[in-house]
């Protein structure tokens, strides 16, 4: 993991971007494991980013502290929203989170006094004075914590119960486990991770704006990475983020025009050829070989 340190600034930067998406993808997958699909990643990312930028700017908070504030803000928002919306199932919950992202964006855009309005807000300097190595370590630390949380979640009693009953709601209801409470908890924790990642993004690039910070890509790309790598595991989203993140960057350099076309084709083909994701495919191979 220390390799990028010797690989030069550009690869460090690319790795930092990949780690950013890795955290988003993994946190999204954690919620999926409770049976809920969120389209609100960009929303919590944005809340974290704005909270961090505004507290750092107005309250002169230390950048690292402001990142923690960003996580807390996203967590608080998720708690409130989770309690009211997590009873919804399937697409209904998904669409609600998508709508909430847009609601956050409209609110931020229309409160120029607080948020800088449509033009956004600029921070005087980037975190660590723009030192790419330190920024890389920061994201790596966040990613490792995210991986640890993901692994921890997979060891809880509730998780085992949910996994065994993922396809059978009736059992879930009769098992006596409070899945709703657990889902709210997971929603809050994963949103906090997304908020922290958003906050680091804001600190790294030293600005926030409604268009850039609430970009729907922060929702879509992590989902694509999870599906590509394989869902319901820690390994899948990691592989997905690494593969898709590096493929995107590599293609861009090789094919300045049309690289996104190939990118789209790759996504389509992988879904068709490896419906279980890369991790699922590997596991399958592994089992077969044994």
């Amino acid at each position: 993991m220390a390799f990028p340190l010797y690989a030069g600034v550009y690869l460090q930067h690319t790795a930092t971007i990949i780690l950013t998406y890795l955290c988003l993808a993994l946190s999204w997958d954690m919620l999926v494991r409770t049976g809920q699909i969120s389209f609100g990643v960009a929303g919590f990312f944005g809340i974290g980013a704005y909270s961090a930028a505004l507290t750092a700017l107005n309250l002169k908070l230390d950048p690292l502290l402001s990142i923690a504030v960003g996580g807390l803000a996203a967590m608080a928002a998720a708690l409130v929203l989770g309690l009211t919306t997590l009873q919804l199932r399937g697409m209904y919950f998904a669409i609600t989170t998508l709508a909430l992202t847009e609601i956050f964006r409209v609110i931020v855009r229309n409160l120029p006094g607080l948020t800088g309005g449509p033009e956004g807000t600029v921070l005087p300097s980037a975190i660590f004075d723009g030192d790419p190595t330190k920024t890389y370590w920061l994201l790596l630390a966040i990613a490792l914590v995210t991986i640890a949380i993901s692994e921890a979640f997979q060891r809880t009693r509730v998780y085992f119960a949910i996994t065994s009953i993922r396809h059978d709601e009736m059992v879930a209801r009769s098992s006596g486990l409070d899945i709703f409470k657990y889902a709210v908890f997971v929603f809050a924790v994963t949103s906090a991770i997304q908020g922290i990642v958003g906050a680091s993004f804001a600190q790294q690039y030293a600005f926030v704006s409604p268009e850039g910070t609430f970009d729907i890509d922060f929702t879509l790309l992590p989902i694509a990475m999870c599906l590509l790598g394989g869902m319901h595991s820690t390994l899948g989203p990691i592989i997905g983020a690494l593969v898709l993140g590096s493929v995107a960057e590599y293609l861009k350099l090789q094919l300045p025009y049309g690289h996104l076309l190939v990118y789209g084709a790759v996504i389509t083909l992988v879904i068709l050829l490896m419906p279980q994701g890369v991790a699922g495919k590997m596991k399958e191979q592994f089992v077969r070989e044994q």
Partner: protein
Amino acid sequence: MSALPRSRRYQIAVPLALFIVVLAWWHPYAVIEGVQRAGLYAAIALPMALILGIVGIVNLAHGDFLMLGAYLAYWFAVHTQGDPLVAILPAALGLFLLGAVVYRATIKHVIGSSELSQLLLTFGLAIVLQQTATLLWTSQPVSINTEYTSTSATIGSLTFGTYGFVYVAAAVIEFAGLTFFLQRTRLGQAASASGQNPVGARIVGINVDRVYLIVFSISLALAGAVGVLFLTRHAVFPLVGGGLTFKSFCLAAMAGLGNLRGILWCSLILGLAESLVSTSKEYAGWADLIFFVAIVAVILVQSHRRQVT
């Protein structure tokens, strides 16, 4: 495709009618333009709701297929110096065939997979379509001006555009045609049955795969035709579809997945609400908020009523 019980229908229709009357007296333009806007939303969202209701797939490339139909019409109008509306049939036919190919090559293989893989597949298709369009036609928008696009009528002191009602007509025709198709034709009945219970449909001898193929193609054909109508009044560019998919998806969710009639109601509510907010000088920037707050509110209320599961 569950229709609401009669009493529930009145619960929605009566307050809505009252609201419209009051609004028409207070802000006549908001009603006229709101209804036109609603027509456009519904015309775009109906084909997506059709796929969602029967094939059970959220087609994230919906707006991009519409974009393709619009570019076809543009190409047609430029090369023949003709009216773009003439291209409705060729565009519908072209997209129908494309739909069949896309279904066979991709969608067919994810029927029965998790809804997320289906989502990602269509997401991939959307990127491919957008980027192909960018390579072929660049990001510079195209638009076509025809004389009839900006026709207007005057009633008393009101001067308003009339062409926008084309979208209302399109939505109504689409809705009526689809309802007829699903309820009165053998194929449509088979489609409804497959939508409600694919396993059961298979047991009674329906070729579900073929039904899906046809429904998918019909939806794309409709998207293509609406795309032609869209071009007559809006600029078209490779990324135009994203926003349209997004709105259609929200509408479909608000209406209840696959509920075609619900699309009409929800479009009307959203169209009117948005128009009303945009007429206000101070709060025009909040118009988007209305759209999304309405969606969340409707979903939450519905869940309390029906216990959405």
